[in-house]
Structures are given as C-alpha cells and as structure tokens.
C-alpha cells in the first residue's frame, strides 16, 4: 500500500534519524570536524616541544630537563583527553547500533514470521477439517457395529486441541507482523492508562496485587495513535502483573516535560536477570512456561513505540522488580 502523501516518514532502514546527528547529540558534538584544531595541536605540539628539548640539551641540561618534563605532561594530558573522547564516541556508537539493530531485527523477523504463519495457516486448516471428517466417519461407523472407538476419538480430540494451539500461535504471529500506520489523534493519556488499569484491576485483586496510579490530572494531551498506546500500556501492565508475587505492587506513573511525555510502569516483582536484559525485546524470548508466554509482547511494544517515534527502556535489579519507561515525543 502506498504511503499517505501528507506524512513523509524517514526510510525504514533508519527510523531514528541521521546517525551522525544522534552521535553528535549523544556525545555533545565531539567529532573531528569541530575539533580539527585541537587534534592538530594534539599531534604537533609534543614533537615541536621535543625538538625544543633537543635544542635545549645543547644549551643547558637543566633547561632540557624541565622542558622534557613539560613535554611529557602535555603529551599525557592530551592523550588522556583523546582517549576519553574516543571511548565516549564508541559508547554512543554502540548504543545507537543496538537501537538500530533491534528495530531492523524486529522488522525482519516480523516479515519472516508473517510469511511462515501465512504458509502454515492453510495446512493447519486442512488438518482441522480432516480431523473433523475422521471424527464424523468414526461416529457413523460406531452406529453399525459394537466396536469401541473411544481411544481413536480421544486421539482425534487431541489432534483438534493441538491444531487449535497452532492456530492460536499463527494468529498471534500475524498480529505481531501486521503493519500499523499510526493514525494521530489528540489523546488523553491519563484516561488511557486509567482505562487499561481497570482492565487489570480485577485480575490483580485475585492476586492481592495493588495497582497504584500516580497520574497528574494536568498532563497535556498527546498527539499519538490511541489504540497503539493502549496496546503498549496493557502489555506492560500485564507483564508486571505476571512478574509480581501475591501481595505485590505495581505503580503506573506519567509525567511530561517540554519535549516528551513519559509513562513508567514499575513493579516489585522478580526482576530481570542481567543475562536476559538484552534479550527481553527479542521476539519469542520468554521465561514463562510453554503455553503461557509467547515472548511477543515486548517486541511488539518495541515496534509500536518505534512507530510512535518514541523510545522504550527498562531498568531492573533481579529480585527487586523492573521498571519500563515509554518516552513519547510531544511533537511528531
């Protein structure tokens, strides 16, 4: 489908804007261009001073000693400065890379899984039909004779149950991969959070979990895609509910600054192991038993937040809970 003409999104390969620009912002613009003078000085001053030292040796050894000390000092200081700048740039580059890679990975996997789900849907439907037909035939055969087909029927029922399970998975995959072109409306974020929280409340009360709302009533309206935001909030709250023990606590808060609106969902549950923290946004990554978790929730959240031009991040100490923060730009 062609894109709407009134919106011109950046190319898909680079959803976060110009990488050089981001690098510059992240590091406070310390790139070669802005600092060529400094770098020239860094490379040229020490040899010049060294030459002076050599010259001074011929005049007086004491002067030469002092000069040599100064040269070493300057070289050390400038080398340290350069090193710290380099490592800052490197860090920023890494952070940027992980973000880009994550987004691209999600897009690629989304496409792949939609393809697979699509292909598998047809055979699954045929298996279901055939199982039904076989059950019907057995029912007919049973009428005419005294043989007991209970076990065959049982096994066919199991086939049906497993087929349903497959169907469930392929549908979730297709939902996951569904392209969602955001539709922007004026959105009352407090109300969205409150609505979704009410959906969680009942289930939370069974677990004796309190869902605390810290929502300022004067939060500005946000121009964003309402159902996408609902999905993100609901997925994050559900995860939090799964993570906490009986008697646990979940806190949903929101705040706004000039540039962005931030929603934070924090729980005091099991937290996330350090070795998993890089994996939780990957599709199919789950620590839940089979049948309970698909591992698609967070990767979908990541994709949705990307689509809203926002950022999602997590902070967690194992055993002390997790906090997911969604930051959405106020002007898109």
């Amino acid at each position, binding site marked *: 489908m062609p894109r*709407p003409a009134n919106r011109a999104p950046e190319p898909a390969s680079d959803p976060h804007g110009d990488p050089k620009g981001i690098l510059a912002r992240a590091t406070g613009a310390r790139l070669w261009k802005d600092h060529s003078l400094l770098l020239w000085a860094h490379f040229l001053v020490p040899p010049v001073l060294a030459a002076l030292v050599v010259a001074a040796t011929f005049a007086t050894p004491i002067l030469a000693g002092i000069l040599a000390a100064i040269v070493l000092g300057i070289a050390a200081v400038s080398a340290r400065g350069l090193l710290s700048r380099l490592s800052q740039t490197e860090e920023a580059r890494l952070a940027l890379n992980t973000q880009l890679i994550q987004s691209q990975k999600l897009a690629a996997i989304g496409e792949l899984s939609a393809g697979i789900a699509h292909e598998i849907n047809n055979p699954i439907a045929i298996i279901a039909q055939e199982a039904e037909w076989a059950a019907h035939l057995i029912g007919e055969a049973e009428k005419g004779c005294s043989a007991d087909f209970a076990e065959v029927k049982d096994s066919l029922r199991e086939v049906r149950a497993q087929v349903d399970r497959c169907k469930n998975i392929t549908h979730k995959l297709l939902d996951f991969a569904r392209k969602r072109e955001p*539709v*922007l409306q004026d959105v009352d974020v407090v109300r969205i959070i409150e609505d979704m929280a009410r959906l969680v409340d009942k289930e939370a009360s069974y677990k004796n979990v309190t869902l605390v709302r810290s929502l300022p009533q004067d939060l500005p309206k946000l121009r964003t895609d309402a159902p996408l935001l609902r999905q993100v909030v609901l997925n994050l709250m559900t995860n939090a509910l799964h993570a906490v023990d009986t008697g646990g606590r979940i806190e949903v808060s929101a705040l706004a600054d000039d540039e962005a609106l931030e929603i934070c969902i924090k729980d005091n549950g099991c937290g996330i192991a350090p070795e998993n923290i890089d994996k939780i946004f990957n599709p199919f990554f789950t620590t839940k038993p089979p049948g309970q978790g698909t591992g698609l929730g967070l990767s979908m959240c990541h994709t949705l937040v990307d689509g809203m031009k926002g950022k999602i991040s997590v902070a967690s100490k194992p055993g002390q809970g997790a906090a997911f923060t969604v930051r959405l730009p106020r002007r898109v």
Partner: protein
Amino acid sequence: MDINILLVDDEADFVETMVKRFGIRKMPIDSAKSGQEALTSLAAKDYDVIILDVRMPGMDGLETLKLIRARAPLTEVIMLTGHASLEAGMQGMNMGAYDYVLKPADFDDLLDKVRKAFERKQLNAKARKQGA
C-alpha cells in the same frame, strides 16, 4: 455528521436500553444478537463503529473481531465486556480493537469513545484516499 453504529450483544435488555439511549441523542443505532448476525449486517451496510460484546454464545467476540477486521479494515471496533478478562482484553487490543469498555458501561463514556473511534475512522479513510 451521522455515525453508523452497530451494537453486537446477546443480552436483549442491554441492547434495548442502549438503542433507546442512543436514540434520545438522535443517533439511531443498529443491533445484532450474535457474531454471525453482525457479519451479515456488515455485509449489507458500511459501519463506522461496531460495539462488540466479548462473551457471546456461538461465535465469540474475539473471533467476530478478527472477521470484522479482515472484512472491513476501516471499521473501528470497541470491545465490551462484563467480566474483565485481562487475556481477552489484551488479545482484543492486539487484534486491532480501538478501545475497551467495561460493563456496566457508563453511557457518556461509551459515547465519547464512539466519537473518538469515528474520528479515527475518518482520519484513516482520508489518509488512504490520499495514499491511493
């Protein structure tokens, strides 16, 4: 601007009250008693917003939602439920429902959501037209 609304619920009393309340506001709405009936109505008329009960005998709300989304991708669906089921809620939202309303529904709240859903449908239709 008239909004074409379809209410799908097997609870006759609830449907009757809702039809009345929308009627008072000069917003006539259609109703269907089951998912199957809803799909038949959808084939005959282009609805802007469908208010859909999650729990219905026969074809359930989620199944119906899936078919509605496939047949009329621009039609927005608001899910309605008496039993706050988190899993069903999440599935509904993930399958592309616009919003969720808990029964007993506050009428003004529902009306507001219907208007927002309609606004989105129009924006979506406009964007598609420009993109086409």
